[in-house]
């Protein structure tokens, strides 16, 4: 990786962190748990890297690919489970009628 690429990536990291802090500072306590499980599901974005790692030819069973496939399973549990459980929780939050 070249130094220029690294700098660009660091820019992205720093700016996204600021966006994150700005977005989340004012979350009411009622939503703390859904926020946590929802953002946890988002961290399953690693699935994108996992899919590429599991990508090589069908016949190929190199260590790299096997690790990739395990990563896909793990990340999918994180993504699917995280989103569904968050939705299940948020469905229950009701205002007084």
């Amino acid at each position, binding site marked *: *990786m070249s130094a220029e690429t690294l700098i660009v*990536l660091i820019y*992205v*990291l720093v700016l*996204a962190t600021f*966006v*994150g*802090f700005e*977005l*989340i*500072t004012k*979350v*009411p*306590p*009622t*939503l*703390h*748990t*859904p926020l*946590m499980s*929802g*953002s*946890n*599901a988002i*961290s*399953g*974005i*690693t699935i*994108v*890297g996992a*899919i*590429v*790692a*599991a*990508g*090589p*030819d*069908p016949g190929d069973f190199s*260590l*790299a690919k096997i*690790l990739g*496939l395990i*990563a*896909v*399973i*793990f*990340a*999918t*549990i994180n993504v*699917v*489970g*995280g*989103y*569904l*459980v968050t939705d299940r*929780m948020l469905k*229950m939050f*009701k*205002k*007084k009628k």
Partner: protein
Amino acid sequence: MDSNLFIQIAYLVASVLFIIGIKMLGKTATARKGNQLSAAAMLIAIVATLLDFRVLSFTEIFIAILIGSAIGAYFAQKVAMTKMPEMVALFNGVGGGASVFVAISEYYRVFDINHEVLDTTTGVTLVLSVIIGSVTFTGSYIAFAKLNGSIKGQAITFKGQHALNAILFALLLIASAMMVNDPQNDIYLIAVLILALLLGVLTVIPIGGADMPVVISLLNSYSGMAAGATGFVLNNQVLIITGALVGASGIILTQIMCKAMNRSLVNVLLGGFGQTSSSVDTSSGSDIVVKEVGVEETAMIFDSASSVIIVPGYGMAVAQAQHIVRELMEQLEKKGIDVKFAIHPVAGRMPGHMNVLLAEANVPYDKLVEMEHINDEFANCDVCLVIGANDVVNPAARTNPASPIYGMPILNADKARTVIVSKRSMAAGYAGIENELFGADNCLMLFGDAKAKLTQVVGELKEM
């Protein structure tokens, strides 16, 4: 259009949707839509990745996705709301684990398949990704096991613990440096992996009980950072952006939790809240004399009240008493009594734990009032019902400078005209200290299982 460019644009769209999704997740009215939006963003990112020219083995990938989805969906549907902290810990763990596997896979791909040389920058990011991911992975499982009760939930400390951690950390740094210096030799990477997994275990075992909300939020933050670090390894912006968002949200929650306990993060992480206090509670002595109250009398006290504040704690979750609490609320409201819930930020084992439980029991969320907003109301309230909460209503935090929880913001339950405490026994709370509130003149103890006792109280109220 070139497929790579298309993928990049799809990632950009996904990143924007993630940001909007998180923003919407922060408001009660839009939260559910926000979560769905971020799920849609995830779908876009996944579909775009499948178009990548390096992705050829669709069958295997689909099978892996199917397995993961089935497991994830099963747990998400099955889990009881009281078990939500465990669930979050579990999902955190697999997220961290996925980051580790991706990073190590990338390492072997570079050498075994492409026969390239790993440059220093990639080496550093790879090591970071493995470390953060591994600590998240084992740390989350220890947190899970503690919450689940399969290992002791309290702080586990032993002599030389900090020294051991320091040595392991130093070894980890050395192994990391060796790995970056000589990437061809995978023994260093394996050493980094093992040391980081161990550190994940050792850093979480000394933390327990009521400090769990801090740990869970911190691990949540780590899982984001792990994803971000993997983004550096793969030169993938969408991973970095989402990782940063999750990392930031976890850090903010961690800060809120620490502030609510008036403790610094370092203090929590070093653990051993319980033992530091043990010397104090012997000196204070247990000369507290409590007054017990029966079911009928409790119902009568409620019947003659005009305002009631309910303070739930972890004990309510343990007793699964949230549904009967809602019934009690309905009974009281039928009699024209004003009912509110006072929620301490660290009540339960996870940020917002009580809110989720009460939402499950159909308590409208606008009945749940935050500490700062309700603390002045206790003085004008007739009855305060404390269910399974202890340290968060201990007046020692205000009055006794020798108490380990001194300075922690608490709910002013003791200021209510009458306080009824529903509690299994006289056992001390997590901090292991006596609660003066229980001996106060205006305090009555309703001993027994919260669910059973409150069911009887509701029955009595119905007959009145």
